[in-house]
């Protein structure tokens, strides 16, 4: 029987090599991908999130754990797709037009993936039409917009307006975040939620999906 706790520990400790090896070992022993995600990877990322919130973990540790988890997910994703497994939600995420900063966005994307969401990461400097295209093509129910700069924050409003004009605003819940973004700004531009860190973004996405 494989030592599945090793997978949990490897994700928690940001050890990608061990996480991948433990995943391979578990799959070879016949453990289902869903069991690995639900019982080991999601709890590990939840623990990472709580360690971040109580300032025992910081951005470097978050990045390491996210990388370890992604290494495992690379192996599991094709198996999940073949089995037709339903994700917790379908997320389209990107840094808005004019803004090239992506560390915060990447962390949110990884934490959401670790939380069982299917994530379509459009990258940085993403035009509104790209968000619309991805929402339509991937039947997304969450859109996450990131901005690091005060000068690119207005592009969040532009993107939300474009989603409205394209007639897809009603099918998605919109989350925004990034250093200069505030709850008040999120409300002003018509977003459905705001999170000031990657860990809390997962809880917010889960709540928004539950609300429908």
């Amino acid at each position, binding site marked *: 029987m494989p030592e599945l706790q090793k997978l949990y520990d490897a994700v928690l400790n940001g050890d990608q090599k061990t996480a991948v090896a433990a995943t391979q070992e578990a799959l070879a022993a016949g453990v289902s991908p869903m069991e690995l995600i639900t019982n080991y990877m999601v709890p590990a990322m939840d623990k990472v999130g709580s360690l971040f919130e109580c300032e025992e973990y*910081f951005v470097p540790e978050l990045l390491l754990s996210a990388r370890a988890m992604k290494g495992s997910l690379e192996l599991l994703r094709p198996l999940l797709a073949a089995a037709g497994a339903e994700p917790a939600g379908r997320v389209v995420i990107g840094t808005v037009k004019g803004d090239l900063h992506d560390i915060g966005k990447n962390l949110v994307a990884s934490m959401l993936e670790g939380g069982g969401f299917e994530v379509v990461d459009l990258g940085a400097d993403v035009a509104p039409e790209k968000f619309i295209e991805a929402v339509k093509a991937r039947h997304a129910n969450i859109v996450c917009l990131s901005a690091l700069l005060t000068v690119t924050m207005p592009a969040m409003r532009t993107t939300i307006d474009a989603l409205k004009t394209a007639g897809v605003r009603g099918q998605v819940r919109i989350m925004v975040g990034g250093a*200069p973004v505030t709850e008040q700004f999120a409300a002003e531009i018509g977003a459905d939620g705001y999170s000031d860190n990657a860990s809390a973004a997962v809880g917010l996405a889960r709540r928004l999906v539950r609300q429908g």
Partner: protein
Amino acid sequence: MQPSRQRLLDALNHRQPDRVPIDFGGSAVTGVHVSCVAALREYYGLEQRPVKVHEPYQMLGLVEEDLRQAMGLDVTGVFPRKTMFGFANAEWKQWNFRGLPVLVSTEFRTVEEPNGDILIFPEGDTSARPSGRMPLGSAFFDTIVRQEPIEEERLDPEDNCEEFGPLTDEDLAHIRASVEEAQKPGCGILATFGGTAFGDIALVPAPFLKNPKGIRDIAEWYMSTACRQEYVHRIFERQCEEGLKNLARVHAAIGDTVDAVFLCGTDFGTQTSQFCSVRTLRNLWFPYYKAVNDWVHANTKWKCFKHSCGSVEKFLDSFIEAGFDVINPVQCSAAGMSRRR
């Protein structure tokens, strides 16, 4: 009313000045965007002429003496010979910055992409890979990360030390001439010599180098501060050694003619927290900060200036203990950093 320099010196030496000394434009972290410098010149009714972009990375405009006087500023800056893109501001040419005529170095060489983004080249060499990108609609450059695939066993700290060499005679002559110029108006002088910013994330990707080696990716660097601390120590040790030698050479050239030295701009804070624990700060950075600041205090009358964005309230005691005299925390909206505190 006190003269500007005296006002700054009083503040730096914990004596009560007649008012708080003001610096806009004296360093890369107290700088003013070229479009704002142009607007300020218009507002104050000064001669309308293209503003010099002295730091192209952030597109910072030079605050010249007439504007400094009009705004009542107390500080002027001394800048390194080379910009963040590795070229000097020796001669100027006119450049149309999306409708605003500005002056840039003749080695400021760019290409515009079909989508309107502007790419800039290290050392002005258009045969090298571009190292900065200004997206359409943006007002300054972001670094283009040029990271070769990392093979853990082959990582060599020396690869991350290419930029930490001795100042050249040309560099020293530039510093000497800049200080002489800065002394003329009689205001306070904040100088930047470079080389002592330990792990500054703006410098890690080395936009000034044509072919940076080692760890140059931003996320990879942050992870290295947690999982490759020995590697980072080796870089900082070497950087510190070179930095101290350079400070000694600069001091031999200019003496105590400058009032404060911008030594490090490494950001330790995010909007809500820090990038590392106090323990990591004290293990990984503190020894090098202390070595540099101790040298400055033992050998010069300069004051040591540290910048950090973000929420760094928990680090302030360590910054003070490491010997920093000035902290420049520009992000007063970050947790625990409000002006009232």
